């Protein structure tokens, strides 16, 4: 399994919460393979286990059973320290609630993972500048999160997720807290990332996001009930769907 080219591989993954009669199986015997460069969307009703799956893939939670491989390395048995190091270099997170550090500016938020990874402050700042430029927020680099709109905050969070050039970006309801216009801004960035070959796993309720993915998995009660390859989902296709100019 470790010799596969897949960025993420999952076998027989189970995650249970609670004890005794109140035990709930959030993820139930799931198998998954996400190749390099794929944009995977996971959809399903609330409480079906989408977010838990994402947390398991990123090493934020430990599975009850099963295997999780990231970049050819099995991670479900790793120490918290090793998982943290893995997240630094290989995984970028984007959360529905943004989770930016409120007292840090947009640039400081973006450069934080680089500093935690031991990068020099100068390099981290330069990289943050490039990424903020890429998400269209160069002019707001010194703004605090409270001075930014929801869409702008999510774009800062995406820039932050990319600062260490991760193998995979895991996004949990990235447009869940955004209005329509802001959602379009975020979708445009995901489209660019996909076009650039960035592996993306996005948990979403938003069909517009799902429509732009290479593959769509539907979840219910912790299980995958459908796994569809969206043949027409090209960067151009997503642009058409969103009526973007390109």
């Amino acid at each position, binding site marked *: 399994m470790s010799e596969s080219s897949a960025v993420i591989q999952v076998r027989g993954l189970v995650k249970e919460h609670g004890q005794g009669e109140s035990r709930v199986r959030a993820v139930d015997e799931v198998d998954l393979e996400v190749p390099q460069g794929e944009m995977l969307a996971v959809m399903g009703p609330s409480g079906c286990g989408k*977010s*838990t799956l994402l*947390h398991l893939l*990123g090493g*934020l*939670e430990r599975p009850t059973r099963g295997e999780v491989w990231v970049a050819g390395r099995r991670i479900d048995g790793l120490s*918290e*320290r090793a998982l*943290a*190091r893995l*997240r*630094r*270099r290989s995984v970028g*997170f984007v*959360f*529905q*609630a943004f*989770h*930016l*550090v*409120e*007292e*840090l*500016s947009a640039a*400081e938020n973006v*450069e*934080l*993972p680089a*500093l*935690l*990874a*031991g990068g020099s*402050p100068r390099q*981290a700042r330069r990289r943050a500048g490039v990424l903020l430029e890429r998400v269209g927020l160069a002019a707001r680099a010194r703004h*605090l999160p*409270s001075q930014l709109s929801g869409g702008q905050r999510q774009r800062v969070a995406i820039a*932050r997720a990319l600062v*260490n050039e991760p193998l995979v970006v895991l996004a949990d309801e990235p447009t869940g807290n955004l209005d329509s216009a802001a959602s379009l801004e975020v979708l445009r960035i995901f489209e660019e990332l996909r076009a650039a070959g960035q592996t993306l796993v996005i948990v979403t309720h938003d069909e517009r996001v799902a429509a732009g993915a290479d593959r769509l998995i539907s979840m219910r009660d912790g299980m995958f009930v459908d796994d569809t390859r969206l043949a027409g989902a090209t960067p151009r296709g997503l642009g058409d769907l969103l009526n973007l100019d390109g």
Partner: protein
Amino acid sequence: MLLLAVTVATATLAMGLSLRGASDALYVQTRAATAGPDVVALSGDTGRAVTSALTGLADDPEVVAHHGPYQIVYADLTTRGSATSPVVVHGFDERPAAINRPLLTSGRWIRPGGTVLERGFATELGVKVGDRVTIEGRAYPVLGIAVTAATSIYPWAAQIGPGGGPSNYTGLAWMTRADARELAAAHDLPVTTAIDLKLKDPGATEAFREAHRFPAPRVNLHSWQFNAEQDARILRNSEPILIVGSWLLAFLAITGVAALATGRALEQTRRAGLLKAVGATPALIATVLLTEYLTLALAGEALGLAIARLAMPALASPTASRIGDLGGPGTGTVIATTVLALVVAVLSALRPTLRALRTATVTALSAAAHQPRRRPWLTALSALLPTPLLLGLRLTARHPGRAVLQAGSIATTVFAIATLLALFAEPVRGYGLNGSPALPNLRDAHDRRLLLAVTALLIVLALVNAITFTWTMAIEARTNVAIARALGATPGQVTAGLSAAQLLPAVPGAALGVLLHLGLRWLLTAGNAADAPVPWLLGAALATVLATAALTALPARLAARRPVARTLSAEAT
């Protein structure tokens, strides 16, 4: 936390304030039980003129009764355990007199060939009834143990020294008149002659003294008030140690509880919002929010007063020379401790309460965590540091006020430890012969025990504070900690960061404590006073910082291992 802090602070204050009256209360009760004289006249001169002068005093119309004259012989005493001490031997009648009638607490009164020892003296010598003591080479059985109000407490039983000069630390023994006379004659020992007087008006001792000034022979008149004052000498340092200690404890209480209250500010703001929404007035909201703190503070005060009541007998009478019951703390003491408890509660909880009151209802109901102030230069500086220090400095910068409180808490503790070390560095002159330490210096030992107890309480509170500061910070910063972990910070780095956030103020705090000690020492003490060696002081500061690091490690580690996904999911809802 509030209960503990207020209890120790009020107990210490109550003990400090009660000491002043306690010594007097015990003297008055001992005086009543022993028919203590109003005035004792003593003369170190010899000859008929002395006896004549002393008996002449008894004829004064103001004098209603007297005892004596009797001889006081200055001698040396040795126990079987080889403890040696100066002793004054009072030559008394075998039948108790009308005034100055020592109260036997064990054994029987004097007989020829035997001696009775004063209780404080006997306790320090470790001598009991039936033991034998050697006075100037001759063995005497100890027939009894007694207390008296005619002299000050042990070790100040010798009211005047030989020839009317200064006296050493001295114990008291009684013998028959004949034995005392024989003892003095056999060894040619210095003798003072004394007479005990009872006045018509016991309060008019000063007027009596003024009316009887002898150019020759030299006669010293010691009033009962003078003896009571002398008694209090043993507690001379106790009162400031306890009162200053209570201030320091109160300060630590405020810092710790304020940190706790700040940590609960979000919850309080939401409660305020709920109350506002149902129409509560600001006064009612303030009352509701403060009631919990006030109730706990008053419960702590009650506990503190009870502890003070139990501890006072040992505290107020370090020698066994006095008898009696101290009763409970006085009204003034209760008022002072109540004020202290209320001040601690109000100062601790006032800021979060006011913030909750000022927050608009809708905002309060949806109260998000307090927005920390941005500090760009600290953020830029921290970027240059290794990850644990980066996290530590940024966590500290979120609440600089708390860092100041933490530094103050550490400074207070190090200051107290340094003062304790300085006290222990001072040479102690024992009560044995020629300052021999065979009989320990009760006053210094008492001071050291008290300062040790106060310092121990300060250390306990400071340690509790360190844990509280860390835990409060960890709770408040849980989202940021979870974000940092999601972005790749290891639990070890987060643990080190949380500990570093405590150590950053602890290091300057410890340095400030040492400097405060040295500064006050330089200002308040004589140039030749002994001080703790500098390596001791630096060691104390270092030990305090290391103890803070060790104590904060556990809550920091627990906080660093909190599940990231659960924290972030909870914050998102």
